């Protein structure tokens, strides 16, 4: 178990934010930082995934590990994430079906796009394992599977030339924006909520920046100097989101996605805002971590076990939605569901780490 660090801390904060924002209508939703900017926790999550890949595929001294090891490492991570997505989706669908039965309310089957599964299990079962049938709020892991699946190509390319890897990534991103490329959803019409062709850019940025940041003092110097720029961008983001100022997608010139604030395509405004957030908050962890010891340890614990915490968090927020629906919500209910959810996330992180510590042979848990 590694010590708390900035990456795990921020990832933990992103996880908590995603958990709360996935209980729409709840009291605490308006206090998450997603409400005060153009980009949100999803960007942070994917970027930090790239950064972590950069760390994981290099030794402590910065020498890259053997190529085959990196490929296998990422492949094994892809399998893990895929398994998590399938398990989480199966549990979510069962929760939806069970709640609909228990409350005798067929509307619940329509929850977040789940209706397709119950209306047409034959096609949807295929879409389910192909990751092309996604439930609302359960669409981040499919993105993640694709991103980590293609990560070996970018990791290996970045060893030749980071600039080349980044250029390739930007080219795919730009073309997807201009030509509106996206992966199709199936069955049913529409596309992926998180377009991997665009979101890969954040992952590659994470991988590449981690490498440059490790090797080049000038980059560290300049990121530190640019904190004020980051603060300005963050302030602008607050103004735009609080006053709900955004471009009208029917009025902007073609290609529209270059100008709108679109999450699916990670439009440039979101990207710029996210870079501003990175610049503005780069040093914050070092400043606040000593003062908020337990909170920092809690968040870093979540971040270290992000896959398990994210999966359980998705199910908990779904459960919390049902509780809010049945009880009618309200501040008290929100405190209870969000509070117990945050505790459950902490317990999840602890449990995963307990499981990964090999129990002593004498303990009853041994097999």
């Amino acid at each position: 178990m590694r010590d708390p660090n900035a990456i795990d801390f921020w990832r933990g904060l992103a996880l908590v934010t995603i958990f709360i924002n996935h209980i729409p209508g709840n009291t605490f939703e308006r206090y998450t930082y997603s409400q005060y900017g153009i980009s949100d926790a999803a960007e942070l999550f994917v970027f930090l995934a790239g950064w972590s890949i950069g760390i994981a595929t290099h030794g402590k001294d910065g020498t890259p590990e053997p190529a085959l090891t990196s490929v296998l490492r990422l492949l094994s991570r892809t399998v893990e994430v895929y398994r998590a997505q399938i398990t989480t989706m199966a549990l979510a669908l069962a929760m939806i079906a069970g709640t609909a039965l228990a409350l005798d309310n067929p509307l619940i089957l329509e929850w977040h796009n789940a209706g397709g599964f119950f209306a047409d299990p034959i096609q949807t079962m295929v879409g389910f394992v192909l990751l092309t049938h996604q439930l609302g709020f359960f669409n981040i892991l499919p993105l993640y599977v694709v991103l980590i699946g293609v990560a070996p190509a970018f990791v290996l390319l970045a060893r030749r030339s980071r600039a080349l890897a980044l250029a390739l990534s930007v080219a795919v991103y730009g073309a997807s924006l201009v030509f509106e490329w996206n992966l199709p959803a199936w069955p049913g019409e529409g596309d992926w909520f998180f377009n991997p062709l665009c979101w890969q850019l954040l992952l590659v940025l994470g991988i590449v920046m981690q490498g440059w940041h490790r090797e080049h003092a000038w980059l560290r110097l300049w990121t530190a100097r640019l904190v004020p720029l980051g603060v300005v961008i963050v302030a602008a983001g607050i103004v735009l989101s609080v006053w709900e100022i955004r471009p009208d997608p029917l009025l902007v010139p073609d290609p529209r996605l270059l100008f709108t604030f679109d999450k699916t395509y990670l439009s440039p405004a979101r990207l710029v805002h996210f870079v501003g957030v990175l610049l503005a908050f780069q040093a914050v962890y070092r400043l606040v971590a000593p003062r908020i010891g337990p909170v920092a340890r809690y968040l870093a614990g979540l971040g270290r076990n992000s896959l398990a915490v994210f999966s359980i968090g998705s199910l908990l927020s779904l459960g919390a939605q049902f509780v809010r629906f049945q009880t009618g919500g309200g501040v008290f209910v929100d405190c209870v569901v969000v509070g117990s959810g945050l505790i459950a996330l902490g317990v999840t992180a602890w449990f995963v780490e307990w499981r990964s510590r090999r129990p002593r042979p004498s303990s009853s848990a041994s097999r």
Partner: protein
Amino acid sequence: MALPKATALVLGLTLGLVAPSARAQATPQSPATQAPAMPAAPAMQAPAMQAPPAMVVSPPRSTATAEGGEALDATLSPECRVPGSRLYTLNRLDAVKAALKEKRPVRVLAIGAPAASAGASTSYPVKLESALERSIPNVDVEIESRGLSGEVASGAAERLRTMVAESEPDLVIWQVGTHDALARVDVGDFANALREAVQWVKSHEIDIVLVDPLYTASLAEDAYYTSIVKAVKDVAASEGVPLVQRYEAMRYLAGSGDKGEGHLLGKQFRLNDLGLRCMAEHVTRAISLSLLQPDLATVTGTAVTPPKDGPRAAAPGPAGSGQ
């Protein structure tokens, strides 16, 4: 993507299970082979007939009167028949009219179809498209259907704008409110976000028809749920856009006869094929009647006289009514 054959197969299979409730309608055929029959106006029937005709055309008059004395809208197929005032409020649809005048295809964006239009319900856009094309002859209707999960009050309204910008339709048919109701978002927040989104669509000279949430018996007494339904109605009224009162229509159908809720929310516990077909008919009815609205007039379903029944129902279609 739609895999029509596979869909038909699936429909056949699922209907095998749901059929009892549908068969109770005394239709000898399997519902899967029924025409998603829409207009009964005999004049219009002719061009529409790839599917078996019959049974929809002229219902026995005795059944055609609702308890309030108001006639059922006989242009609807018997199992979907609801009095007009329960079904819609009408308003003008200028963009669609313009498309009709220019004799170009009418582009329709159907948003928030049940089951997000996956699988069996792919048939909903298909049903809607054929129902619209039959009720407005000589017109090509191009339907694009998109699921919209999430709440209007938080985020979904924004995605709606993106979808509209992507497809640039003449008409948006928006089934709205269910997700917000399930998330128990504040009714005021919901109404404001909905109103803004409707205003935005209108400001770009795109027509919009709202469809309010589904009815289900377990929520009939839920004051919050009905307040969401009412919010949709209020927004439609204040913004002057047509509304399909799906909640009222389904409640009416659920209460009529001994069919109970199984009628539209089949034994399989979801909006079944029949329910989707009725919805396609109801939406089509509201649209084709809205197209008949005189310019500069706003009339509600009660004020306008919906065609009473039988032959007189040959309410002249807006275009090509003469055939």
